């Protein structure tokens, strides 16, 4: 397969279950390593880098299944997402509560997430929707310019979904966004371009209008999905 995402665009990846969407994310973010092929980020080969090395290059991802730090507070969850990007690394010489810029950035993100009231609550006791919002918060906290979101609205009600879409719009402004999503309303409302993945193959890439009009896509995936809805 061959997939190219342009800088600054919002790119959605859709496809039936088991098409390999999450696997694609796991390969790009180096959770898995590819046996063949090549992955580039901003023109640089990142195929053999470790997840944390890729993250440091400005690519940050969220997870389909909520993946947070359950015993840390919401504030600490987000702050952990900030620390490396501000250059604090593995420091044992600095007091974490004295790091103004890290705290300010974390609070700014928490504000955007609408989790201000939950700032000092352990993340593990948040509601599902709150944890999903936090998941996005940790992902964008570092200010990475390439964001991968894996089904950010999975398992959410209509109103919760609308809130998350608004949130994604806000926090990915001016960044490159790649998103796996099942909710066609979200995909067609948010994406500049869409790629359709079926059995590990990209069968089409194009604007929402092009994808909607594409007969192969309709046959392979969209038609069925629309019929369901």
């Amino acid at each position, binding site marked *: 397969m061959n997939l190219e995402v342009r800088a600054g665009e919002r790119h959605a990846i859709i496809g039936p279950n088991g098409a390999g969407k999450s696997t694609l994310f796991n390969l790009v973010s180096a959770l898995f390593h590819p046996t063949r092929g090549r992955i580039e980020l901003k023109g640089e080969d990142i195929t053999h880098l470790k997840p944390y090395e890729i993250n440091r290059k400005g690519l940050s991802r969220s997870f389909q299944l909520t993946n947070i730090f359950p015993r840390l507070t919401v504030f600490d969850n987000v702050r952990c997402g900030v*620390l490396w990007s501000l250059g604090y690394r593995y420091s044992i010489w600095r007091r974490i509560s004295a790091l103004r810029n890290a705290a300010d950035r974390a609070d700014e993100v928490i504000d955007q997430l609408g989790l201000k009231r*939950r700032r000092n609550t352990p993340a593990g006791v948040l509601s599902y929707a709150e944890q999903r919002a936090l998941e996005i918060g940790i992902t964008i906290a570092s200010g990475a310019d390439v964001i991968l979101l894996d089904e950010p609205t999975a398992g959410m009600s209509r109103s919760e979904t609308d809130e998350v879409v608004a949130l994604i719009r806000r926090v990915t402004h001016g960044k490159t966004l790649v998103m796996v999503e099942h909710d066609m309303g979200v995909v067609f409302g948010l994406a500049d371009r869409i790629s359709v993945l079926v059995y590990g193959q990209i069968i089409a890439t194009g604007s929402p209008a092009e994808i909607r009009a594409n007969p192969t896509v309709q046959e392979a995936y969209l038609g069925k999905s629309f019929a369901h809805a």
Partner: protein
Amino acid sequence: MITPPLVTRRRLAVWGAFLAMLIAGPLIFNKGFALSLLCQIGIMTVFALSYNMLLGHTGLLSFGHAVYYGLGAFSTVHALNMHAALPIPVTLLPLVGGVAGLALGVIFGYVSTKKAGTTFSMISLGIGEMVAAMSLMFPAFFGGEGGISGNRVTGAGLFGITYGPQRQMYYLIAGWGFLSVLAMYALSETPLGRMANAVRDNPERSQFVGYNPQRVRFLMLVLSGFFAGVAGGLAALNYEIVTAETLSAHTSGAVILMAVVGGVGQYYGPIIGAALITVLQIAVSSVTQAWMLYFGLFFVGMVLYVPGGIASIIVRHERVWSAGLLRRLVPTYLLATVPALVMTAGVVAMVEMAYAIVDSIGYTTMRLFGVLLNPKGLGPWAGAVLALVVSALLLRLAARAIGARWQDVNTELLTREKSHGDDAGAAPVRGVEELRTGVDHQGSESRSTSG
């Protein structure tokens, strides 16, 4: 956000009180026995806190922490014995232990921190056994069965401080102990310290915020090795002898016991554990041979019923106390005390009678709770079993009453917090507690929430 000041009134009060306690300790407990007990508690405090850097802070369950403590102790005693050639002031000798622990942490940490969880635990067990086996293979360094002894009085000393008197030794331990406790606390409040918590909670996710979890674990292990080595160094100077037992599995087990009983979820937990276990060890072992068995029972009971350790009990009650609701709990607690005591007496009676039968051939009577009885007689056994069964049943009832009262108090706390509009603490109290006290979460609940 306003940066919280480094020195707050609360911090000043807590650390000031701690320091005052350390200074005043030997003035109150000035008998030889009490003083050496204090020394032992001080050493164990540093050791247990260093262990908790791994277990509580980083989520690493090590079965071989005695390696760093023991080799720190051996290094220190050798440095002491080389005093003529290498005159390091005795005051600074614990640092030799620290550096030895740190160096070992670099070597063993490189091997063991590649993986967390069970893999780490097994490797730590293997390293512990390996070093313990080595101690018998290299008698030149480890001194064989007799161990290595030294003499901490190396000369006239500065200002007459020779460390000859036990009290001077105590203040050396107190000084290094205070610095270590402070340093380890400070460490837990650094970027590395916080990321250690993150790695404990969810190593996978920590990779995706730019951190290498392996590096975080490695650094924490190295630093933990340093403080364990300092504790070992203090032990070497205090006892003036180091034997192979210091780096045995027994010592590794003892430090787990201290950390877990004290509570790994709070910074101060292991301090309580170190003090309690040390006192119990000496007190119980002086009255009965069966002390190890009691320790086992105690440990199992703690892990089963109070997995967060004593510190978690304190945290829970502190919240209730500050809300002025503790009075509601006290009556049920008093009610439970009686059957708890009877049950303990029943267990103790059975254990002691069993030991008496095995040990004292020829004797037909023993003294138990001030009563002469025949350990082979049916009466005493029947009495003990009856006491145990009846009190266990009563204790169940009492526990139910306590549970009901707690539910009461929790509901009250929740409604109060809600009416205050402070959402931060409004999460179910029990949920928070479980999250804080759990040791082996490894982020598993975050994954299960969306399953």
